[in-house]
């Protein structure tokens, strides 16, 4: 597969190692599993999922898919934030993770959009009708116009603009991808004027994206937070808590991705420990803020709950969702303590960070699930009785497939373009 010229490209671009092929095939299998699940769902109708109607049918009409929408969009948050911060404040030690953060954002957003699509009863119609009839009064308007369209497009633009210098460098040497690089570079000559212009563009883009991102995530919080009819949802804390947990899961993803990339590409010199430390500290701060929100919300609901809030909090604290609730809380508290310990002792270890990051992401999925589901099964204001929901194999398959697709995308990207920004002379 490899040609002589390709070997010239840095970071293993264009060279398909056995490990990479195995990884790629593995991810493809997961993705294929998701496709099978989705085809089955389309064949049967959404009865193939575990979701059912609220009320007399005693189900939850939003389930794992919507939880994953919230989760994926949350993950995207951190990517672009970190990338923007790096560019804005020129944090040199983080330069190595900037691009992977950008890629992560885009992949997570696409997965989030796909998760919405698989949740729609009429997906094709959804694509058309949202743009044809979309109503600003629906919090979904924000979700598709700002989050998916604006934010995703802005992130793509951002990635593109920051990729041009690398593309120009790669375009200088012969390879099968040379044409692509030349196209991406689009006339980049690395002149001081161009650099200055580039800095200006990325600065202003970062400035625009950051508030857009807060607004976008808040509208996602509003999807739930504006519903008076659902105990557990109607809360002003929904939006800030959404954004914070989004940061937690996203930073966690960057840490994991950075650790993998550093190992696989043998690039520990490019992504150094102090990058991990910076990310770890950031993660720690967000974690404590989020734990604070959680405690505040818990105390508020427990202090003087309405009868309906009580049913819900009982289900969360000691009922059928207790294992997810306490599991998630542990998945947040333990990493918080691990990070605090490392911060206090100043003894940072990447492996611990990775463990903490995986834990917070599992916890984040758990928390998203708990936001979406219990308010439906245990939050009926009329005495319908307690409902139940558990995802069917189809939903698990589709979610696994989405992760598989994400892995495929990132894996493919790594073989096409440097996942770590090139240093002077690297190429």
């Amino acid at each position: 597969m490899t040609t002589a010229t390709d070997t010239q490209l840095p970071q293993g671009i264009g060279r398909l190692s056995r490990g990479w092929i195995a990884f790629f095939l593995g991810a493809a299998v997961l993705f294929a599993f998701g496709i099978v699940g989705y085809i089955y769902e389309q064949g049967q109708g959404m009865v193939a999922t575990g979701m059912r109607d609220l009320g007399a049918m005693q189900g939850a009409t939003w389930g794992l898919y919507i939880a994953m929408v919230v989760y994926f969009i949350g993950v995207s948050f951190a990517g672009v934030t970190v990338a923007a911060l790096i560019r804005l404040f020129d944090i040199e030690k983080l330069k190595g993770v900037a691009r992977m953060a950008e890629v992560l954002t885009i992949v997570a957003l696409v997965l989030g959009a796909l998760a919405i699509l698989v949740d729609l009863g009429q997906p094709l119609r959804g694509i058309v009708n949202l743009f044809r009839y979309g109503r600003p009064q629906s919090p979904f308007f924000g979700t598709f116009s700002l989050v998916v369209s604006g934010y995703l497009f802005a992130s793509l633009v951002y990635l593109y603009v920051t990729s041009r210098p690398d593309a120009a460098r790669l375009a200088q040497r012969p390879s099968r991808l040379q044409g692509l690089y030349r196209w991406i570079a689009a006339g980049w000559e690395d002149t001081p004027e161009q650099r200055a212009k580039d800095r200006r563009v990325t600065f202003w883009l970062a400035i625009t994206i950051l508030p857009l991102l807060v607004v976008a995530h808040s509208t996602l919080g509003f999807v739930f937070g504006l519903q008076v009819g659902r105990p557990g949802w109607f809360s002003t804390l929904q939006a800030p808590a959404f954004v914070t947990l989004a940061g937690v899961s996203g930073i966690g993803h960057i840490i994991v991705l950075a650790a993998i990339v550093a190992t696989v590409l043998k690039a520990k010199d490019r992504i150094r420990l102090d990058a991990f430390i910076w990310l770890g500290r950031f993660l720690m701060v967000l974690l404590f803020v989020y734990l604070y929100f959680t405690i505040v919300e818990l105390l508020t609901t427990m202090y003087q709950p309405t009868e309906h809030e009580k049913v819900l909090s009982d289900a969360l604290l000691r009922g059928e969702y207790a294992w997810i609730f306490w599991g998630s809380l542990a998945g947040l508290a333990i990493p918080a303590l691990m990070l605090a310990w490392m911060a206090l002792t100043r003894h940072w270890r990447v492996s611990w960070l990775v463990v903490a990051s995986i834990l917070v992401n599992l916890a984040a999925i758990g928390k998203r699930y708990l936001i979406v589901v219990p308010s439906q099964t245990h939050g009926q204001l009329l005495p319908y009785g307690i409902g139940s929901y558990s995802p069917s194999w189809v939903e698990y398959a589709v979610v696994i497939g989405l992760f598989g697709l994400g892995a495929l995308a990132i894996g493919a990207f790594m073989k096409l373009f440097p996942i770590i920004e090139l240093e002077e002379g690297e190429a």
Partner: protein
Amino acid sequence: MKRSTIVTWTMIAVGVVLMVVSYFFLATPWCNTAVECSNPRVPFAPAIFVLGVLIAFSSAVYYAVAKD
């Protein structure tokens, strides 16, 4: 001013104007009690809104790529 700067600002302006104007083409948020409230006042207004977002951000690409 350079031509590219003008075009860039024009793109941003067009994008923002599209967003703002199309916002008023959408279904009115305060109206819930009539059939008309369920339709945008101009067909495909949400698409125009999104188009505005896209044009505004595309300006960055244009600005970066444009040869002076």
